[in-house]
Every structure is written in C-alpha cells, then in structure tokens.
C-alpha cells in the first residue's frame, strides 16, 4: 500500500473556538466558523482560499454541508467522516492524501459542539442497540469501566493509578488559562467521588463542556510562502475495531496497537522521540491503554508508568499538557483539541505549560467506546 509522504503537508493555522460554556443559543456551526476564521487569520489565508473542508460534530448529521453553507464557500474536496472523537485525526490523514493527490490545496478541518449548553443527552443521543441497551449500561462510561476492570484484573492496575491520570491532568489544567477546571484535585478526591460505573467515579470521567476548533493544512511547498512556522505532518495511522463494547475483541488492547505503529513507521520515529504526547483522556483508563498500545511502555505497565507524578507538570513525561478532556475541555469529540495542543506546543505557544524545545509531538484520538483509534505525529521544520 502506498502511504502519504512524510512531511509533505503542514499545519499552518490552528485555533480553538470559544470553550467551556459558550453564549446562549450559540450553535455548533457558529463555533466551527469562529474557529475557522481564527485559524485562517493565524496563517494569513482568506476564506476564499479554502477549497477543502473536513468537519464533524455529534449535533449536525451533515456537518460539511452546514458549514459550507454558513461560510458561503464552494469546495473542490470535502469529507464528513464521523467516527467519534478521533474523526479529526482521520480528517487530517484524508486531507493529507487529498492535498498530495491535487484534489484541494487549502484544507480546513473543523469541529464545534454545544453539549454543555444543550445537555449531553441532547447533543449525543445514543443509538438503540438490541444487544446492549436493554441491560442499561451508562454509556459510554460503563464500556470504559468494563475495559478498566479487566485491565485491573489482568495487570493489577489500581484505582489509585487511574486517579493519578486525573490528578496530573488537573495540575496541567491549572497552568492553562483556558481550562474549565480551576481548583486543585487530589487522589482522595477522585477515589471518594460519586461512583458512576465501577471502578470509574465521576472524577475518572471527562468533562462535559462546549467547544470547538479548526486546523488549516497546506502542502509543505505552499507553507513556505506563508509567514508562519509550519508544523509538518510526519505520520498518521487509523484503525476501526468495533462499534459496541460487547464486540471488542480484547478489552485491554485497542486499535492504537495498529494505528500507532503505522504512524511511527511513516514518521520514521519512536515513542522516545516525542517531546509532547497527547492521548485522548475520555476516562482515566484511556491514556493508560494508549501508552501501552502505542509502545511507550509494555502491555500491562501503563498504571505503573503514570504513578508518582510522572505525567504531571515537572514529571518525567509530558502528557496531555493542556489538561486534557479530564480538566481542560471536552465537548464530546476532543480529538481536534488534542491536535491543536500538539501544534501549539511545537510552535512554542503554550505559555506556562510550554514544554521547552519541543520538536516532535504525538496526538492520539479515540472514538466511540475504544472503537476508532487514530494517531498523528507532528514535527517542526528541524524534524523534516
């Protein structure tokens, strides 16, 4: 299989929309458009330059249609792939292929959600599943709980280790002025919080916020004509493994075990080369699974990897430096915001939480119930 070429496209613009709790009556498409405008301003391109559009949200079934209408643009290429929170990593991989194939030249990827304003139930109504719904899981939480319980059983992972992920995320969030959470969090706070689906308490679960973001991608050649420091796309990989948790083959091994090696092979890099790592933290178990599946540590060691403040600010490993879906922002499909943080870190724009001299970053997206896994590796000009 021919793969897209390492470093042949670059992110030149990246921006968050309004986050947290946005103004009353704001729509997901309002937030997408706001983020697109900000991301274009970020790289000096105009709306009229955009000829490729990639968009998804849980609230609008045909997001590319709605956004193209709103922005009043005619497109040469578009893609509305929706595989949950990792959709935007998938969009980036598809945009890479489209730009290389000459199908478009300025690709914009956009996301917007008002799930806090309208409620999670209204923003992401769950589809009826005859084999699961009657048993009354609280989804998606119970699905992740079932994976966590199995991981604990097989590898001795503890609730305290899960809590470390939430505590570290909170510490990073306190360095991020845009983060939703503003108060410190302790391991005991996580353990004693209201249990939702054992072993996960409400503090093991991601936030429910509004928010969105956008990225602008162009060819490496075109990026040189812009007055920006391009962040190159070095590698990516995408996998789908199941839709329902009852059909997940191994509850402790995710598709990241495939998407990761694809991305690393394309980038010619290893986990040790990553200065910043963003792993979708929908629940505290997910970064643990992804650390293992992406090869940062052996299978079963993820819990021990995160203990002792290793992933907190000042620790040995820069993980989820924006505060993640657990403490910064989680509008439902967080993958976009993870990529924005990876890009901003590489551009040196992450303020108090900046990782010094960051040259390579990985952003990993998760969708559904550990169902879709997409990995992207970014690098500065030095790495191309």
């Amino acid at each position, binding site marked *: 299989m021919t793969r897209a070429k390492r470093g042949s496209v670059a992110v030149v613009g990246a921006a968050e929309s309004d986050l947290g709790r946005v103004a009353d009556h704001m729509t997901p498409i309002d937030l997408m458009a706001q983020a697109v405008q900000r991301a274009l301003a970020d790289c000096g391109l105009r709306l009229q330059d955009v000829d490729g559009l990639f968009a998804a949200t849980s609230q609008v079934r045909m997001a590319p249609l709605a956004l193209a209408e709103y922005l009043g643009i005619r497109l040469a290429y578009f893609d509305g792939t929706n595989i949950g929170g990792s959709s935007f990593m998938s969009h980036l991989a598809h945009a890479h292929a489209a730009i290389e194939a000459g199908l478009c030249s300025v690709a914009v990827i956009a996301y917007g959600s008002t799930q806090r304003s309208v409620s999670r139930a209204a923003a992401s109504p769950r589809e009826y599943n*005859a084999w699961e719904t009657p*048993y009354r899981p609280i989804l998606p939480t*119970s699905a992740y709980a*079932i994976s966590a*319980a*199995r991981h604990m*059983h097989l590898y001795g992972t503890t609730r305290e280790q899960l809590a470390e992920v939430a505590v570290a995320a909170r510490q990073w969030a306190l360095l991020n002025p845009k983060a939703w959470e503003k108060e410190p969090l302790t391991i005991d706070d996580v353990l004693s919080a209201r249990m939702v689906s054992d072993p996960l308490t409400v503090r093991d679960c991601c936030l429910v916020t509004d928010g969105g973001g956008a990225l602008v991608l162009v060819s490496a050649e075109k990026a040189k004509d812009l007055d920006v420091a391009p962040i190159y796309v070095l590698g990516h990989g995408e996998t789908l493994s199941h839709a329902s*948790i009852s059909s997940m083959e191994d509850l402790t091994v995710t598709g990241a075990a495939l998407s990761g090696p694809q991305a690393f092979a394309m980038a010619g890099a290893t986990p040790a080369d990553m200065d910043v790592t963003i792993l979708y933290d929908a629940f505290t178990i997910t970064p643990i699974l992804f650390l293992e599946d992406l090869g940062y540590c052996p299978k079963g060691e993820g819990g021990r990897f995160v203990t002792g403040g290793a992933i907190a600010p000042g620790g040995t490993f820069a993980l989820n430096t924006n505060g993640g879906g657990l403490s910064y922002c989680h509008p439902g499909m967080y993958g976009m915001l993870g990529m924005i943080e990876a890009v901003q870190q590489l551009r040196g724009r992450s303020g108090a939480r900046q990782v010094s001299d960051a040259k390579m970053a990985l952003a990993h997206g998760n969708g559904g119930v550990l169902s879709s896994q997409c990995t992207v590796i970014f690098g500065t000009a030095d790495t191309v």
Partner: protein
Amino acid sequence: MKDETQLTEHNLAQSPHGRFLEHAARGELAFQRDGKGEAFFPPRLVSPKDGTDPVWVVSAGVGTIHSLTLVRHKGEPPLALAMIDLDEGFRLMSQVDSNHPESLQIGDRMQVAFRPLAEGQPPMPVFKPLEKST
C-alpha cells in the same frame, strides 16, 4: 421494461433479532457459527469475516464473567453489568442477578436464566451464579 435482476425473490420472514427472541421466549440462548464452526454473537444475516450463511445453535448457557461493572443509576441499587464468555466461545453483554453484586468477581462461573428486562418487554438472557453440581 422491468429489470427482474433488480428484485430479490422474496423477503426474509425473520430477522436475526426476531429469531433470537423466539429462542429466548422458549428459554434458549441462541447463537451462531460461521462456515468454519467459529461461534459469534450477536446474530447476523451474514457470518463476519467469512461471509457464509450462519448456522444457528442453542447454547448450554454456561459461562464465565469476563469483565464486570456495577452501574450506579441514581436512586437505584447497583446493577451488575457483565461481559459473559459462554463455554461455546462467544461473548455477550448481560446482567447478573445477585443479592450481593459487590461480591461478584471476574472468573465467576455463571448460568443463563431468562426474564423481561423491563415491563412489557420479551424475555432476554440474564445470568446467575452457577449452582455447583455434586
């Protein structure tokens, strides 16, 4: 002119879910095997991976808790939601009926039972601890 090739000969009389419910109403846990005899669940019209017509089989209804979570619906006692590995080699989501859900463990042996999961609904498989035979 009518293009006969665009039409199927007849509609199927029963869906996979419909057939499963019919078995369940008789107290049977039905599942399917593919062309290689591999068990799978949930029931389908086409065997996954190999594309053959599935073969229906009735399970002995004995299995093991593969994983487990106590679901905390507000204002209700904890509900034991489990993934059950049936001895025939397929897995499904179900509930475990137990007076002591906190004491359930991964690896516990289970046997199937049937009851409606909500008022007015058809019986569905649930599980209870396997009674030890002597």
